[in-house]
């Protein structure tokens, strides 16, 4: 009898709450992401238990999909330091609310990167070794230190946002006050963030540029500069895109169109600058045969990576967005502007993927006088793809959560009051329907 009642109540509850909630697109979207996350966690456990042998990484191509995701996440998280620096150090007041969005996106990006790295290293139990055992000559050590320190900076910048979260504010008012109080330090944190980010974003490029064994990467300057510049551009583009896109989907995201339009315009110029930089770097390479470098350049421009390079990176990632964002008629079209910003971010991801792979697909031979490059190949294994997808799903989930509950996109004044009719019915909480 008792059981019968509980069952009945359950069904009742299901009908009352779960069913209407699941009809909301955002809930379905979050459930969809959660599935990926759960699968990703399972795949990650498999990696931890069985070791990296279940990946398709080899001694010749030791850095694969995970490192590419890690590089991309760090690049796209750079909006946090760039927007904060513009808002608080260059004192562009109108950008301060956008900095909040950027910091949250950056926090999510860096947590993605750290998860990927934890999976990728052979001894995850020794992740802390970089902080204790120093090799100050290694760019990777520098990256480890700065990413670790910068993550704590981001955490201090994100805590006020969480402090404003409704449940925290109501249930733990004193804790909430402590957390929101950290907001005082934002200008100082912006300065520290700028320093740390400049150091590690460029060192990430130097990580590749330092390798004398891989001629396509080798060169102390170009890699560091391009990594730094792509990070800033991709980061700002992503923050602008996420703000615009969220505002399209939900009234919970409130944007200042003028500010975002300015940012989009800036990204347009930046894309053009990036095009020049990338062109100078690659096309400035000597025309005569340089073993290893010539083959890698061939792979990039005409071989396996050609589609990625020409289409994703150059045309869709730089040329098209630059045209859209710099010509006012095109930029004023909301769809086009959003697409252009997303393309810039995708272009940066393609750049990271191409760069990481191109140096590994050609291994320079060792015979003096007769250099024989060996061509290697790499396709990520299912486990790598599932864990990568899981971590990315986590990122999207975190951003959705942030927009919906933490109000990270609240750019204040200048917002047209969202017309009630334009809000999709499904977006209105079921209780008010």
């Amino acid at each position, binding site marked *: 009898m008792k059981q019968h009642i509980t069952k009945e109540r359950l069904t009742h509850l299901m009908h009352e709450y779960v069913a209407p909630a699941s009809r909301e697109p955002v809930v379905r979207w979050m459930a969809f992401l959660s599935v990926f996350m759960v699968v990703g966690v399972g795949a990650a456990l498999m990696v931890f238990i*069985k*070791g*990296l*042998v279940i990946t398709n*990484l080899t*001694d*010749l191509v*030791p*850095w694969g999909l995970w490192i590419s995701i890690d590089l991309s996440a760090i690049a796209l998280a750079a909006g946090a330091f760039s927007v904060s620096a513009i808002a*608080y150090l260059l004192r562009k007041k109108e950008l301060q609310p956008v900095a909040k969005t950027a910091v949250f996106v950056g926090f999510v990006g860096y947590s993605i990167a750290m998860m990927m790295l934890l999976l*990728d*290293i*052979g*001894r995850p139990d*020794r*992740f802390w*070794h*970089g902080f*204790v*055992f*120093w*090799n*100050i*000559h*290694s*760019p*990777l*050590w520098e*990256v*480890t230190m700065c990413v670790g320190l910068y993550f704590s900076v981001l955490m201090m910048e994100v805590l006020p946002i969480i402090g404003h979260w409704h449940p925290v504010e109501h249930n733990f008012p004193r804790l909430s006050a402590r957390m929101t109080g950290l907001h*005082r330090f934002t*200008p*100082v944190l912006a300065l520290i963030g700028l320093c740390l980010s400049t150091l590690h974003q460029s060192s990430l490029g130097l*990580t590749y540029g*330092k*390798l*004398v*064994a*891989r001629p396509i990467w080798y060169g102390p300057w170009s890699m560091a500069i391009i990594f730094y510049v792509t990070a800033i551009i991709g980061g700002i583009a992503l923050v602008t895109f996420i703000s615009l896109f969220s505002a399209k989907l939900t009234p919970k995201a409130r944007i200042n169109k003028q500010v975002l339009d300015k940012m989009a315009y800036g990204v347009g110029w930046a894309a053009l600058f990036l095009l020049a930089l990338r062109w100078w770097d690659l096309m400035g390479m000597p025309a005569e045969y340089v073993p290893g470098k010539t083959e890698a350049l061939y792979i990039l421009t005409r071989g396996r990576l050609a589609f990625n390079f020409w289409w994703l990176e150059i045309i869709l990632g730089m040329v098209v967005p630059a045209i859209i964002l710099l010509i006012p008629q095109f930029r004023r079209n909301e769809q086009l502007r959003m697409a252009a910003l997303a393309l810039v971010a995708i272009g940066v991801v393609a750049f990271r993927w191409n760069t990481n792979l191109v*140096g*590994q697909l050609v*291994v*320079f031979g*060792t*015979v*003096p006088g*007769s250099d024989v490059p060996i061509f290697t190949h790499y396709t990520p294994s299912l486990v790598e793809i599932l864990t990568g997808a899981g971590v990315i799903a986590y990122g999207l989930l975190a951003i959705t959560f942030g927009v919906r509950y933490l109000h990270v996109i609240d750019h204040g004044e200048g917002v047209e009051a969202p017309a009630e009719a334009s809000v999709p019915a499904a977006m209105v909480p079921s209780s008010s329907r």
Partner: protein
Amino acid sequence: MSSKIDRRDFLKLGIATTATAAIGIGMSNTGLIPLRMAAPQAPATTKGPENPPHKWVMVIDQSKCVGCDLCLAACHAYNDTPPNISWSRVEEVQPLEDGQRVFRPMPCQHCQDAPCVDVCPVGATYHRYDGLVMMDYDKCIGCRYCQLSCPYGARFFNWEKFIGPNPDVPAAGTPEVERRPRGVVEKCTFCVHRIDRGLSAGLTPGIDPDATPACVVACTYGARLFGDLNDPDSPVSVALRNNPDAYRLREELGTEPRVYYLPAKSKEGSAS
């Protein structure tokens, strides 16, 4: 809050920061602050020692190597390497003009200016007092950056744990070192355990088999020589003196390897 910082405050802050840093650095030099973390494996330069007491060098005579892989079997057994890892490899390279096959054994080159030592984020790979490039398996985090940095492809990652019997034991020898754990990088050590053991027993590495790397001892053709370049009478010093055409791999990179190769010569002289 930030807008309240005027020039005077800014200068004060700057001076205070500089002073703090100066005091910190000063104290670390006097040993008041034990910079233990940075100390042992982070010297001012990542090059090997300038004048080591022993300059261990391997000389590989390509005119004697027949590609029989006996050296590899010995290496696998003595260093207990998993079947999918071979610290040294024997590659067949371009044949001579008369069609004679040429082989090139490739151990770790133990570079004086080793890219791997330079880039290892935790200093898990380092130069020993005698300049040999070593691995600290307890420090290695398995990031595999050193593999990308090595111009000779001499570094290997333990993708899985090595369990089960070693196919080369006992036919080619018995293990003398511990198996490495999963998830760390390993590479040829020039059999430092044999060198050190031999030295402490008063033997001469390169001459006494018990003090010489296993691959050198195993080579029945005498294609591998080992010894101290500081000793003018060591086999390697003699060989390099007699063969001015000795070369090292990818010298243009400036890594200064410790492995020298004597080029293969066509056997016309011996045939006539």
